[in-house]
């Protein structure tokens, strides 16, 4: 029996966690499941690809990969800028779509609208970038031993660390800063938040910006580890929601833990039952949580 699935699970878990914290943030404050979150992820990957390409053209030369990794410094700069792009995309979608629906107070309508936005964005990616998979680089990465008989590629290690770092930073933001307190307060009781002097509209915009930016980072990570496709984010949606709900909607540590649980479960299913079972795992986790503990691990009762 090989324990290699632990590495795959950890990497998949970090990616899922990174996406799920965005889902949990927007869900807890806006009270609806945003199905377009997957497209923010794909948008992040394509934005990094496009910005990186544009910088490459501007420099007039291909930049060399950084050390043992397959990506260059240009890709990293592009990835940071892409986080801004996806954050802005989330804000724009809120301004033209969700804010209007929120004012009418019907969550179901907002959910359906997010589904529509998801399809529209996916079609847009297909129209602009075609449906053929794209890659940041064609360079092959060799997995190296990392101890305990396990192997990982340098990319996997670096991106695992990066995802973890982003999640720790977000947790610090939520628990230790005025912005995080405002987000938690608005999430619990927007009316009282106004009474307490918090600008609820500003906090909602910040949440979109943050959730979108983290989705963008997740997209670049998935693009580097796997490939870039218009449907890459949509395919991640079920694991993301499973992770967010497992952790308890609104809880950042919960979403991270949920992400790792789903990631390990998926990797174990692939290793022991066969790759065709991968997709069923998130579904099984989701149904199990909803039946056994609907508030999730760290959720508060509604």
């Amino acid at each position, binding site marked *: 029996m090989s324990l290699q699935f632990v590495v795959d699970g950890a990497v998949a878990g970090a990616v899922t966690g990174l996406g799920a914290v965005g889902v949990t943030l927007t869900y807890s404050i806006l009270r609806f499941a945003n199905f377009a979150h997957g497209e923010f992820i794909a948008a992040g990957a394509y934005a990094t690809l496009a910005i990186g390409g544009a910088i490459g053209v501007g420099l007039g030369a291909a930049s060399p990969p950084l050390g043992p990794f397959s990506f260059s410094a240009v890709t990293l700069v592009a990835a940071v800028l892409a986080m801004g792009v996806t954050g802005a995309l989330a804000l724009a979608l809120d301004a033209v779509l969700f804010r209007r629906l929120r004012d009418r107070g019907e969550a179901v309508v907002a959910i359906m609208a997010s589904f529509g936005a998801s399809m529209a964005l996916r079609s847009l990616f297909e129209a602009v970038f075609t449906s053929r998979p794209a890659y940041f680089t064609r360079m092959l990465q060799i997995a190296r031993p990392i101890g305990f008989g396990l192997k990982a590629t340098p990319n996997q290690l670096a991106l695992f660390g990066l995802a973890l770092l982003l999640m720790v930073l977000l947790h610090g933001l939520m628990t230790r800063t*005025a912005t995080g*307190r*405002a987000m*938690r*307060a608005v*999430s*619990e*009781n927007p*009316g*009282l*938040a*106004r*009474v*307490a*002097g*918090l*600008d*609820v509209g500003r906090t909602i915009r910040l949440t979109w910006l943050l959730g979108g930016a983290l989705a963008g980072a997740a997209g670049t990570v998935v693009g580097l580890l796997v490939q870039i496709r218009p449907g890459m984010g949509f395919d991640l949606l079920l694991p993301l929601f499973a992770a967010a709900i497992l952790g308890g909607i609104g809880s950042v540590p919960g979403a991270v833990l949920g992400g790792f649980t789903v990631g390990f479960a998926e990797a174990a299913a692939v290793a022991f039952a066969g790759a065709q079972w991968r997709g069923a795992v998130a579904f099984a986790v989701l149904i199990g949580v909803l039946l056994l503990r609907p508030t999730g691990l760290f959720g*508060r009762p509604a």
Partner: protein
Amino acid sequence: MSGTSDARPLLAAEAVVAGYEPGLPIVHGASLAVAAGEILAVLGPNGAGKSTLVKALAGLVPVSRGTVRLDGRDITGLPAHLRPRAGLAFVPQTENIFASLSVADNLRIACDVMPDRPRGRARTAELLDLFPDLARARTLLAGRLSGGQRQMLAVARALVASPRVLMLDEPSAGLSPLFVSDVFARLRTIRDTGVAIVLVEQNVRAALKVADRALVLVEGRNRHEGPAKTLADDPAIAALYLGGAPHSSGSPA
């Protein structure tokens, strides 16, 4: 004696028409004025529009006509979240604390929104001395506090910004009599520091005891107004609007 009705009002509402739905006002032209160092009780039967009036003054319910002035400045259209900064604090009746946040974070939020955060932190330290229960429970989630402690936290949160006007919507609701007298004793202390207090209450007897003046609302309009003592001693008013005479003579209608 603290509390004089002829002093220049700190908070003044004139002929305010307000309601949740457009075209369906609940407050039909009510007026009130409260001066520094004065407690004004807003009384009246259920559905008289007392809560709606204070929510309108807090900016939570739209005001369709009339004006609200804070120390002479027209704040009728000022967004609710800017009012604490302007010196107008409000303690809602229910869900007036963030249950999922720690006691300390509940108070920190009040500091966060102040232009002068160090002053807010200094004031928070003073308030924790004033409310030792809260100081002991600092790290607890506010949702785990008892009813009385929650009310203290809600009041303390409102006081962090050192407001000039403090409005409370039924602070005695759901509290045991012991806590009610404790809360009201603290209101008196706060008043004595020069704060103007607007107190909406169902507990008429207790409210008239603590208040300097009282306003009786009926069907969204001013019906009676005067010194709290006068209203408390007027059996007609007690029987008609206050749900029972304060001196256990006369039976309620």
